[in-house]
């Protein structure tokens, strides 16, 4: 076998191939119910799903639910990120704290966020605060761990230099800690944003707080199958938007960073 030349597909042809894949998947899901492999009552063809999505998108209820979901997601994420940044910087910069908290973090982190669902139901019922409890708990850990790691990653020589020049605490954070930790923080932000969306939808679905998740549950209960699939598709599209958005943010804010420059140069 001759060595395959490292051919790099151009972005345009990659996008074309990707679109081909999407169309192919849509075709498969169009055909499965049409040839009777699965009853269309349970799995409507792609076109029916898209039509239902179109119908949903013209109703006000859909947009209200969408705003509710985004509201819970954004608020929960903001609280989690603020907490994660403050605690992460504190824990990451003091070695003793890092050692002392490691075991606690290891214990608390694997507690499934969904275990809090009954607690949220009892304490807050079907309110925004229930969503927030789950979203904040779940999305706090990725950002916290990334911040701790990022702050701990500061170059010792640079740190000594800052010490020798008697940087003020503020200058140390601004010129030493932040540039090092930024790439970690942004990765944590992206991870947390995705987790927060998952938990927002989960809370709405399981507890019944207003939002797209609740609408999915309602559609299921009233066996409005195409509408249910349409809503799930809509949630997926929001997820893609969140991922793409945060990745773009990362690229923008880290334009000076070696990892991004290397990728761009390729």
């Amino acid at each position, binding site marked *: 076998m001759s060595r395959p030349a490292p051919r790099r597909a151009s972005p345009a042809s990659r996008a074309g191939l990707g679109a081909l894949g999407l169309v192919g998947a849509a075709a498969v899901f169009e055909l499965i119910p049409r040839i009777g492999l699965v009853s269309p009552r349970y799995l409507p063809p792609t076109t029916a799903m898209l039509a239902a999505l179109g119908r949903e998108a013209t109703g006000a209820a859909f947009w209200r639910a969408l705003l509710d979901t985004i509201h819970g997601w954004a608020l929960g994420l903001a609280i989690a990120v603020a907490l994660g940044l403050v605690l992460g910087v504190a824990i990451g910069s003091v070695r003793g704290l890092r050692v002392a908290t490691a075991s606690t973090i290891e214990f608390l982190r694997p507690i499934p966020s*969904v275990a809090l669902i009954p607690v949220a139901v009892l*304490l807050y019922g079907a309110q925004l605060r229930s969503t927030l409890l789950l979203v904040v708990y779940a999305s706090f850990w990725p950002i916290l761990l990334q911040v701790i790691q990022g702050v701990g990653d500061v170059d010792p020589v640079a740190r000594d230099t800052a010490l020798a020049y008697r940087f003020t605490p503020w200058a140390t954070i601004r010129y030493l800690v932040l540039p090092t930790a930024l790439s970690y923080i942004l990765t944590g932000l992206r991870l947390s944003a995705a987790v927060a969306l998952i938990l927002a939808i989960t809370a709405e679905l399981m507890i019944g707080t207003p939002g797209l998740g609740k609408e999915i549950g309602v559609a299921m209960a009233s066996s409005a199958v195409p509408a249910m699939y349409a809503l799930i598709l809509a949630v*997926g599209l929001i*997820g893609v938007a969140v991922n793409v958005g945060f990745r773009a943010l990362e690229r923008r804010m880290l334009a000076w960073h070696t990892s991004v420059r290397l990728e761009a140069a390729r």
Partner: protein
Amino acid sequence: MTAVARRLVRVLALPAALFALWWIASAGSTSFYLPPLPRILAVFGPTWSARLTSDVLPSTARLLLGYAGAVVLGVGLGVPLGARPRLRAVVEPTLELVRAIPPPALVPVFMLLFGIGTPMKLLVIVSGAIWPVLLNTIDGVRAVDEVLADTCRCYGITGARRLRVLVLRGASPQIVTGMRQALSIAIILMVISEMFASSSGLGYAIVDFQRGFSIPEMWSGILLLGVLGFALSLVFRVFEARALGWYHGLRRTRRGDA
């Protein structure tokens, strides 16, 4: 010996303090929803020893089965996708879309298609836990050392042997990372799938307690989930130390040389 003791104190100090804090803060609690910790602990043993075979073991079995399925599928699909850039370009946007759907939102779909039995629960776990394994496998296979790949070609190592000694071995650090992330996702989805529609399992039991207002029992279930998560992550760490011992050793020597 004293170093070990000191380390132990450091590791255990904060958890012990937090536990004590919970104990003291909740001691005089008259809130119906936040019972004193001693009461939660008092019901822990009786509650879960009675439900061990009916709830705890079935849940754990489903969790492990679903997790195993996710790992096998994730690695099985990740290897060809990682090795073939064109294939990857074709399926990437589709995967991106499916991945962005929160797995709990798929529970209604699986219930519709497969009923509320064990297959539905396993599928829910697989559908969520597969992503970290799949994506990390793809990355790991893409990043297989080129010199090693050339060496394999020179020695005529192909087929299954190449897969075992080069591709899977080379990608294993990433695969294990993905497996670690998948484990916590699998626990979450195990609970969710049981909370939805079930007559057995940990998630079902906790929701059942909540609906019956057996609050200390509910809290004990939450504690049990925490312990389960923690225990599994400990087991995983032992597995990782054994499976990736060569890799951590390699990194240590490299760092020593540098």
